[in-house]
């Protein structure tokens, strides 16, 4: 029994030895010496350059992206401009001086305003002419609501359902306890 156990151990060891066995090829040493003798690979020299170029590209893309957002803000008429249409300077002239936090706020605000500019434009004679490619939308006209005109008497309401009163017997605590004991 012990002999067989030792035999199996020996077999496991021999197989493990075989699985990591063999000698490296002659090319290994030759390749190592060749690579040592070779000058430093060019790739190593460009890596910092590539990294710097990538960083510059990212920064440039960010600047362009942020700049694009500002243009969007500029295009949207300011609330003040809606009240005072005669003002000559475009409302966005103030925007670049605004702190970054307010720019974000203006952007969300501008999203809400986007559907309204043409309504205002209908009330203002100074509305800018639509640029090429833009669709001209006719101003909405909303009739004032007249509550008196709504005929409430004409509304048919179904008759209510009669519910019979429910007879509820008063609770007796002693009785409940008695029920539980039973």
């Amino acid at each position: 029994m012990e002999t067989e156990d030792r035999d199996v151990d020996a077999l496991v060891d021999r197989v493990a030895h075989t699985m990591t066995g063999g000698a490296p090829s002659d090319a290994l040493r030759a390749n190592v010496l060749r690579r040592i003798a070779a000058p430093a690979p060019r790739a190593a020299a460009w890596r910092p350059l590539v990294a710097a170029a990538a960083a510059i590209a990212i920064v440039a893309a960010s600047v362009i992206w942020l700049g694009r957002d500002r243009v969007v803000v500029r295009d949207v008429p300011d609330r003040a401009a809606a009240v005072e249409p005669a003002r000559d300077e475009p409302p966005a002239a103030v925007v670049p001086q605004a702190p970054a936090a307010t720019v974000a706020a203006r952007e969300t605000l501008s999203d809400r305003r986007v559907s309204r500019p043409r309504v205002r434009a209908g009330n203002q004679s100074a509305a800018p002419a639509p640029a090429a490619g833009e669709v001209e939308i006719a101003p909405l006209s909303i009739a004032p609501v007249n509550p008196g005109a709504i005929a409430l008497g004409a509304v048919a309401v179904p008759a209510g359902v009669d519910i019979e009163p429910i007879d509820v017997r008063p609770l007796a605590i002693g009785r409940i306890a008695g029920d539980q004991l039973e």
Partner: protein
Amino acid sequence: MTDDELVRLARAGDVGAFDQLVIRHQAAVFRAALAALRVREEAEEAAQDALLRAWKSLGRFRGDSSFKTWLVTIAWNRAISRRRSLSRWFARRVPLSEAGAIALDGPGPLDVLRDRERARCVARAIDALSPKLRDALLLARSGEHGYEDVAVMLRIPVGTLKWRVSEARRQVKRRLAAEGIVDGD
């Protein structure tokens, strides 16, 4: 010339001295890489990377361990890093027929066949071990590295290494018993 003397010369830029070190230790470096990667081509690549890295890092060799241990540890780390990045390494292990070709004593052809089949089963069982146990067993039994060296390579105490080798053997035997290759009693 000793390894230390060659290292001193190599540090000074003597490529010939480093070449001598490569000749002495390339087999150990290769076997360590093969134990991790199990594919000859990958092991050669890893060994090459390790030797090149050793050449570049000679200045950092402090002599805490022998040069061979330091070198083989670099090879092991390179191979493990390579193994992690290889998704296909599982599918490209050393063909089991190589393990089956192990020279075992057997007087007759039937015995040889039986032993080869057993060797294949053992190789499969070793393959099925967890990486920790398999690495310990293969490195310890590669015939190139002592327990002390392997413990340094794996960054574990010698006692832990011995336990892993023993546990690896035990699990292989249990699997062989389950397959009816050996008695499980």
